[in-house]
Each structure stands twice: as C-alpha cells, then as structure tokens.
C-alpha cells in the first residue's frame, strides 16, 4: 500500500488554493449583484413613521439564494442608546434577472444611514449604506396615484401637506406603509398597475382609518374592475356633457370653470352619503370604509378642464375638508400597562416555606447524624451509611425540584391587547403589547400571524449595559417572526397593531327618564366584566355573550344621584373587580384591572360628556401570535374600549 505524504509546504499551497477558491466565489457573486434602493414614496419619507423601502436587486450571475437585511438605526452615541432594527427576508433570485422587494421599516432619525445587506449562508455578499438626510420631509404626504395629474394640487401651507406623485412600483406592500400619508388620491385607471399585495395594502390602510379620494374615469372598464368593486360599488346611471357646474363652483367658491366641455358621470355609490349634487346628479359622495372614509367625485379629475384649472387647488383643499376628523386612539400610558403585565407575569419563585423546610430539615438531620458518628463508636458505621443515604436522597430530590422549577419558570410571556371600536363601524383597531420575561439568557422566536403588523420594541430605562433594544424581525408574505434575545432577569416589550373585523353594534334609545342600549354581539367573543362610563360615572353592566343581543336600560335620573367617579374611588372598583374575578382565568385580568387603568379611563374620557363609553374584557384570542417550538407559560388579556354612538 502506497503512502501519501503531504509536506507542510504542500499543505500550505492547498490551503491557499482553497481560500482562494472560496474568496473568489464570494467576490464573483458580490460583483454580479447590484442593489438599487428607493426610500419612501418616490424618495420622500417622514421621521418616526413607517416608511416603504423598495429594493431592486439585479442578479447577473447564477441563482442567488440568501437573506436580505434592511437595518435602520436609532438613538445616539452620546446617550449610549443606539438600537438597531433589523428586518430580514429570505430571498431567491433567478440567474440574469431583476427582482423588486418591498420592506416597510420605521425610521426614527436621519442621523444614521440605512443599511441594506445581502447574505448567503451567513457570508455578506453585498451591502449598501444610504444617507437618509436628502429624503426627509416634515410634512404629511398627499399621495397622488394617477398618471396625468400634476403635483401642484395643494398650495395652502397651513395644511402642512406635501403632494407626491409616485410610481406604482414604490408603493408599500403593507398597510402601515402609508403611515406618513394623510390623504391618497386614486384614479381608477391606476388600480391595474398595482400588484395584488399593493392593492390589499391600500385597501387595508383605508380600512384602518385611511382617507381616500377616488375620482371618476372616462374609462368605464376601470370603474367596473374587481379591485374598484372591492373599494366602492358604483351604480351607473349615465353620462352628461357639461360646460359648467354651478354646484361645484359654489362649493369651491369660484366663479366658473374655464375650459372645454367635460363629462359628468351620473354614478351612485352604494351605501354612501351624498355631499354635493348638481341637478340631482351626485357630484361628491362619501362612504365609510372600515375605520376610514372614501370620497368619490363623479368627474375625471385628471382630465381637462380640471387638470389645468387655475383654481383646482381650492377644490382639492375642499375635498380634504370633507373627511371627518380621524378617529382618535386614546393613548393610555404604556408604562402603567407594562407595570401591570410585569406584575401578572407567570414566572414565579417556588414558595418560600417548602424550600426553607427542605433546607432546614436537611441541616438538622445532617447535624444529628454527624453527632452520632462522632459520639457513638459502636453505631458509627451505621450512622455514616445513614448520613450518606440521607445526603443522596436530599441531593437527588433537590435536583429534581430544581430542574422542574427552572424548566417551567425560567421563561414566560403575556400579552395585553386593547381593542378600539368606533361607533358602529364594525372594525376595530387592535393594539397588542407582548411582554417576555426571562430568568436566563435565552433566544426564542415569537410568531405573529395574519399578515404584516407594525412591530416596535418599547425601550425602558436601561439599568444594565448588557440589555439592548435591538429589533430583529424575519418577514415573509404571511407572517412575521420576532427573534427574542433576552438577558438574565430581564424583560422586553413589543407593541404591534392590526385592524380586525368586529361587527358589534349598539342602538341607543334615549328619553327623559330612560336610556336604553341594545348591544348586538354576533362575534365569537364573550365580553365579560363590562362597564359603561357616562358623565364621569362607571356603571357595571351584565356580561355580553357571543352571538347574542343584550339590552341595558337605566334611568338617567337615578344615575345622577350616583356619586361621580373620583380617582380615590378607584380602589373600591378594583377591589370589587378582584372579587368577581376569582372564578375567571388565573385571576390575571384582576391584576390588569388595576387602579391605573381605571384612572386612565377616567382621565381620557371625563371630558366627553353625553357620550357613552363601553369597557369590557374578552377572554378569547383576538390576534394570532405564538411562541415557536415550545410550550411556555403564558397569559392573554384583551380589553375592549368602545365609544357608543348616541344618535
């Protein structure tokens, strides 16, 4: 058998050869990939808002499979609070091709560059650093989704709006990507340019409270398209040739519209409210769409005379004023809620007394046996054997108990969800706080299902240098995975938002001596421990069962005899709720229903007189989220807040 001898020199050459091959492969791959980035809407973004980032990757080499990372940095070095938010996505690009990726990220400062990185099996293939300063604006955006409308439709600086025409490619694929946008004008022809995900994002944005202006189009095909029907259903009643529109000029406050003839579209939008009519033909209609509103103008605003109309900005300003004030999300102090969530965390010490008794009995028995070994010469060996046996029993039982407690208690999490209902709009804004608590240094993954959500980490006062507030999210089309990186004896809180369908309805009948509210709950959620807050008074009402209607009636006169809620009374209410909570799940809600929450409700709603506010708890899961790979102690609580319409 021949022996193969490799000298040190030969080995070195081999090593250099291998290193050369590896690095040349990486170099070859990086040189064949090109990254182009567009920040915000056609290069404009506002600070502290979720911003779409469009990344175009050109691959001139072979098939690329790897990870795309978009990293935004916040904080400053002087205060030593630099945090990174990393948005990751697994990507695949065919050879000799170009692919567009859209990420929605939160940009808090332009002091740090935005980093785009491409990794292949942990190796950095390509990276790009973008200075954000040139793209920043402090105005809210009026987005124009039309092919022929000019940019100068808003002139009034008091509106603090910046109009922006954008290419369909740069539109976000998530609803919260429109965070910086105040209004969107959509021409029906533009809809076909959107990808399915972009259209869904736009629709969901309106659903979450967005304000959308749609104009008519001479292209009837665009108005009857499926996408259009998902937004508004139009009943076509004809077309009229016009030279002037008196109602419109009166509405805008100008003398006349100069220019050629135009078509007035006799369209009736289903379930809408007519704002302006011209000879019984609806000109402007408004429709509620989830928590948002759509205004439909029965004219093609990107065609002449409206396109080149000198006073067109007056019309656009008037249109923006037709929207109701955006729904106000009452912001309670996160600090108070976090404090309660920490208190309700499932992770607990073992009870002190059993552990003390375990140790005390051990030390006593051990001392007794040692004395016996030392005193009694005859029974020495027996006592020694007993001593060894007892020692082994205590150590093994102690180790078992220790293992059990450490495994079951070293990590836990809970969520506190707030559900905001506005009138009878049938949609609810959901705000979920998720708290994670760890006794040990750990890395886990938390999955958020049901589409993309804006997720932020809530920084708290940092008392240890090893605690960071970096965000690490891997996103795909349907869900997001948060990588939880927790240190010993630490906690982290994440906040996410969503919009869900919540068709709960209330009908209020009010007379001088009787106020009757009929609440219809067709959902699958039982609402428990309900309270009404009316004229600074809390009124306890019965639970509202799922798929049932409940009628509550009381006399306003009797209500006025009840003492108004004052903060000092909060203790009584909390105590009362604790009592009723004994039978509910783990008594957790009782912990949440702290004085702070009642106080917050009081301070938030005390000024809204003659309005009825409803509060209750939902036990069922509202948002799909779970810890991946293991079953851990957790608890969920959902608090429903609803401003009931009185008219």
């Amino acid at each position, binding site marked *: 058998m021949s022996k193969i001898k490799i000298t040190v020199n030969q080995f070195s050459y081999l090593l250099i050869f291998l290193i050369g091959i590896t690095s040349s492969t990486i170099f070859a791959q990086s040189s064949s990939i090109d990254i182009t980035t567009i920040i915000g809407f056609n290069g404009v973004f506002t600070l502290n808002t979720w911003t779409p980032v469009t990344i175009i990757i050109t691959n001139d080499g072979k098939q690329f499979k790897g990870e795309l990372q978009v990293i935004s940095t916040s904080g400053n070095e002087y205060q030593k609070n630099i945090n990174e938010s990393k948005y990751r996505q697994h990507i695949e690009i065919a050879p000799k091709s170009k692919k567009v990726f859209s990420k929605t990220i939160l940009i808090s400062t332009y002091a740090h560059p935005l980093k785009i990185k491409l990794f292949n099996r942990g190796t950095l293939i390509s990276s790009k650093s973008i200075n954000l300063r040139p793209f920043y604006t402090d105005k809210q955006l009026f987005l124009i989704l039309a092919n022929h409308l000019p940019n100068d439709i808003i002139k009034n600086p008091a509106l603090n709006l910046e109009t922006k025409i954008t290419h369909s490619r740069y539109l976000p694929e998530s609803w919260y990507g429109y965070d910086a946008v105040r209004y969107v004008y959509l021409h029906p022809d533009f809809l076909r340019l959107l990808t399915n995900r972009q259209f869904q994002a736009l629709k969901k944005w309106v659903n979450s409270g967005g304000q959308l202006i749609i104009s008519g189009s001479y292209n009837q095909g665009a108005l009857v398209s499926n996408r259009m029907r998902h937004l508004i259903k139009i009943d076509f009643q004809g077309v009229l040739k016009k030279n002037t529109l008196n109602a419109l000029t009166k509405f805008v406050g100008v003398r006349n519209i100069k220019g050629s003839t135009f078509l007035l579209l006799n369209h009736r939008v289903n379930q809408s409210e007519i704002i302006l009519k011209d000879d019984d033909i609806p000109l402007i209609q408004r429709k509620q769409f989830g928590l948002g509103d759509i205004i439909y103008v029965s004219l093609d605003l990107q065609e002449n005379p409206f396109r080149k109309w000198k006073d067109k900005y007056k019309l656009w300003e008037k249109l923006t004023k037709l929207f109701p004030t955006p729904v106000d999300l009452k912001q309670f102090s996160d600090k108070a809620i976090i404090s309660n969530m920490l208190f309700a965390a499932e992770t607990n010490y073992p009870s002190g007394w059993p552990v003390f008794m375990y140790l005390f009995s051990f030390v006593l028995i*051990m001392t007794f046996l040692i004395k016996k070994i030392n005193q009694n010469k005859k029974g020495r060996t027996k006592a020694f054997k007993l001593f060894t046996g007892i020692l082994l029993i205590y150590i093994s039982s102690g180790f078992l108990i220790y293992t059990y407690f450490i495994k079951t*208690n070293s990590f836990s999490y809970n969520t506190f969800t707030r559900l905001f209902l506005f009138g009878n709009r049938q949609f609810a804004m959901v705000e979920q706080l998720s708290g994670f608590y760890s006794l040990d240094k750990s890395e886990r993954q938390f999955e958020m299902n049901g589409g993309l959500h804006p997720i932020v980490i809530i920084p708290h006062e940092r*008392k240890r240098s090893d605690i960071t507030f970096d965000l690490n999210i891997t996103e795909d089309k349907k869900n997001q995975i948060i990588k939880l990186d927790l*240190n010993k004896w630490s906690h982290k809180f994440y906040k996410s938002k969503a919009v869900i369908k919540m068709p709960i309805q209330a009908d209020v009948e009010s007379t001088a001596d009787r106020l009757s509210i009929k609440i219809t709950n067709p959902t699958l959620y039982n609402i428990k421990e309900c309270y009404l807050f009316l004229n600074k008074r809390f009124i306890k009402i019965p639970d509202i069962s799922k798929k049932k209607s409940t009628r509550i009636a009381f006399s306003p006169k009797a209500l006025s005899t009840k003492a108004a809620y004052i903060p000092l009374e909060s203790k009584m209410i909390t105590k009362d709720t604790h009592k009723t909570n004994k039978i509910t799940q783990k008594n957790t809600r009782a912990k949440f229903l702290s004085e702070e929450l009642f106080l917050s409700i009081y301070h938030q709603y005390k000024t809204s007189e003659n309005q009825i506010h409803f509060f209750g708890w939902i036990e069922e899961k509202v948002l799909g989220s779970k810890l991946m790979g293991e079953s851990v102690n957790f608890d969920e609580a959902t608090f429903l807040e609803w401003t009931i319409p009185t008219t």
Partner: protein
Amino acid sequence: MKRLFWNGRFQRHKNYNMNRNHILDYFSGVDSPFKNKKLLSILSNFVWLLFFILLFIWPKQGFYFYVREQDLPLTYLFIFELTFVLIGYLNLKCGNGEVYIKMVIIRVKYIDAQETYSFNYQGIFWSLLHVSFLLAPFLPILLVASLLSGINISGFLISIAIIFQFSVVFRLIGVSNFLVLGNNNTLSYLISRLFFIFVTGFSWYLSPFINPIQIFITFHFGRSFGEIGSINYFYFLNGYLILLISVLSTIIFYVLRIYIKRERLSLNEY
C-alpha cells in the same frame, strides 16, 4: 494490606517531626478520613453557616420586582463564592495534613517483610471521592441558591464542576506543600495560604479567565467569556485546571520518589 506504623505513629511523628524521611508514615495508612470527627464537625459548622447566610440574603421581593428593576438576586453569587472558599480552604487543610494526618491523595502501600513499597493508585480515586464527599453536604444549599437566582441546569453543573476541580487543585497544593515543607511549621502554613490567596484572588490580576471569583461573577450576570484565541472558554479553563493538577501531581510523585529512595525502598507498581 498490613497497617504499618499505626500504633506508634503519633509517637514517631513527634520524635521525627521535621524528619521528612518519615513522611511515608503519613501516606501508608488506610484509616478512612470520611469519618474523621474534626472534619465532620467543620463540615457541619460550614453547612450551618451557609444556611444562615442564605436565609439572610434570601430575595425579599417578588419575581416581577427583580425583572422590572433588571436586577438579579445575589444568592447564587454569594453562596457559590463562599462555598468555593470554604471547601477550597478545607481541602487545602486536608492536603496539608492539618485536619487529619493521613493523606489520601497518594498512598504508599507496604507490600512485604522486605519493606518493599509501592504507590497505591486507588488512593487517587479515594482522594477524589473524598473531595466530592466534602462538597456533597453543600449541594442542597447550592441547589436552592441557584434556583433563587434562576441559574440554568448547565450553569449549575458547570459551577459545581469548577468548585470540584479547584478543590482538587487546592488539595494537591496542600499535599505538595506538606511534602516539601512539612505541616507543623509557620513557613508551611504561610506558603500554603499564599498559594490559596493567589489562586483565589490574585490570579485575577494575572488573567480574569482563570480566576474562580471572576468565573462565578460572569456566570451570575449571564455574561460570556466567549472564546480565548480560537478556543472555547470552557476548554481553556479545563485545560488550565488539568495542567495545574498534572504539574502538582508530578511534583508530588517525584518528591515522594525521592523520599522512598532515601528510605532505600523500591518503587514498584503493585
């Protein structure tokens, strides 16, 4: 095995106190140090001491308080550091022949009437068992201390292994010191304590990676030593301890060989 020198040992010990040629006397017995009265009393007192200290530093607040304040209950750090010092010191004393005179680390075995001696390698096993025996009564307290500090299972086991390995090192330091300087003089006492202080405290200045106090602090706060060069920290620490144990064992082996030669006895493996 015949028990040699037992009856006249103390007498001879007194007469030949500084005569290290008679050191073999101390290595020849088989009387178990496991049942040594003095040692058991010391052990009992140490366990009571730790028990009271644990009660004193028992976390006064609920779990959420510590997590909210990003604080850590100090039970693990205090109790493990203290146990390390107590057991280490006890092993040093045992090795130095201060608690009981017979050594267990390496025993020399009398074979026949021709006064032929051999190393009894079982002594190493008994010695390690004895170190474990000294550690065992502290384990229930160490378990509770780890539990209250939320130390995970691997962290607990590694900490116990570190205490054990350092205890073996202290015992070997004691034996080496005993063989070279004897056990009944001030110099021997001082040198052994200096070694103890160096390994426990001053090694910090040499390198924090080899300092046991620093190791427990690192574990307690969940920090990581990461890698030293390209070597995983635990491989590095184990390598360091094994090196220490090997060096000390070699010293003991050769010093003992010199004594055996002086006594004109053959050193054959049995």
